């Protein structure tokens, strides 16, 4: 009985901590010297992908303050001199809010719709970071590398998203009430 209780508790804790831990892992992975062409350039956008994917499934396990902390950590670790600290935090928080407010279009819909949603939100994220970095350092930063990053990360999405999607409960609607969307399976528009 006791072992069962302990296991159940660990399971519960694990479930709650997993999205945050995965996000932290990807924030740290941003700095890993992978040296793979294109891929290593796109690493800084992977945390945004993780935020998007987990906001779809379990936004209550990625609370806003956690996203704020992770975003600031990412900016501190990655940023060069003069780069704004907190712009990733702003982007994460906005991605989560956008996903939560549009769950009916994003949860329980075909994968292509989710991909399209990610493309839109990631573009918003890239533009946000680019704009604030340019504003804060007051230089005209070449947007091409940022757009290259974007192109790579939206191509990686179909590879990574199904993996991350395994973290959520099996049934897309088998989630706590407060995070459940209004959409039913097969429903794509209101």
């Amino acid at each position, binding site marked *: 009985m006791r072992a069962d209780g302990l296991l159940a508790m660990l399971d519960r804790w694990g479930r709650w901590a997993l999205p945050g831990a995965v996000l932290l892992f990807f924030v*740290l*992975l*941003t*700095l*890993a*010297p*992978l*040296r793979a*062409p294109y891929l*290593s*350039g796109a*690493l*800084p956008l992977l945390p945004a992908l993780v935020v998007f994917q987990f906001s779809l499934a379990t936004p209550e396990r990625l609370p*806003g*303050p956690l*996203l*704020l902390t992770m*975003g*600031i*950590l990412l900016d*501190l*670790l*990655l*940023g*060069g*001199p*003069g*780069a*704004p*600290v*907190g*712009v990733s*935090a*702003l982007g994460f*928080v*906005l991605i989560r*809010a956008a996903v939560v407010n549009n769950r009916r279009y994003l949860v329980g819909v075909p994968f292509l719709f989710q991909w399209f949603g990610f493309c839109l939100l990631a573009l918003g994220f890239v533009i946000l*970071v*680019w704009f*604030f*970095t340019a504003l*804060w*350092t007051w*230089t005209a*930063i*070449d947007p091409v*590398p*940022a757009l*290259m*990053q974007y192109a790579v990360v939206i191509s990686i999405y179909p590879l990574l998203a199904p993996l991350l999607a395994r973290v959520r409960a099996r049934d897309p609607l088998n989630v706590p009430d407060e995070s459940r969307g209004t959409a039913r399976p097969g429903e794509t528009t209101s």
Partner: protein
Amino acid sequence: MAIRDDFEVVASQVRTVVQRFALGLLVIASFGAMLVGKADTVLVEHARVLALDLASPVLEAIARPVAAANRTIADLKEFASLREENARLREENARLLAWQTAARRLENENERMRGLANFREGPEASFITARIVGDSVSAYVRGALLNVGRKAGVASGQAVVTGEGLAGRIAEVGEHSARVLFVTDVNSRLPVLIERTRERAILAGDNSPQLRLTLLQSVAGVQRGDRIVTSGHGGSFPVGIPIGEVVETGEGSVRVRPFADFSRLEFVRVVDYGVTGLVGGTPAGPAAPPAGIRIR
């Protein structure tokens, strides 16, 4: 029942308001962080250093297997071209031996000349070898994280070199970690010399793989293949570290290809020149800095 329904409606409205408010608060907090970062750069610097120190052990654990895998792949690639590589190296070895003879002769000659002219040498440089544990490469930054810090004697502004040439300079230092800003970063500006003409210029990065030579007195004197070396002006770098060679001379813009291969860096050396000039830090070196460089 009506009262209960009303209560539920009000409760849900309150919940919605709180949720909206929460988003607003989070947005305000992120803007607050950005503004604080802009206003108080010292605080942000401390926070960065703290984050680096905390993250560097984890990164080091990640970096080792990654480096091993990268090396294995590189080894396999080299294995395929072993024969040609060997022939090339033998040829290069013969050429270098000839250069070595020339260098010995020049060194002797130089020493005698210095003795005659009573020339006083600049401070001696010492090296700190470091492993690169993290890349801080994104669309906006070109840099890397090292596993050495203040404890090992690293200070802000020191030069970071590879076997081929200059890689960058130390931008931030923690207790056991440091951040290098590569010469290709948009924030990098270096006083340099064109080795052949001894003309001074500024070498600037723009986040692309190549560098831009600016503030030249005359673009006309620069030719393709000219080597660019550090000039030592500003006092934080030794004189004559090779940086790169000119690959393109156009209308008012000269492009330079750095010698250091940033995609394959694994170990670098931090040059402790003993003199950290304009960039701050305490000069721990010899009492006599080279002529013309008076610090503080």
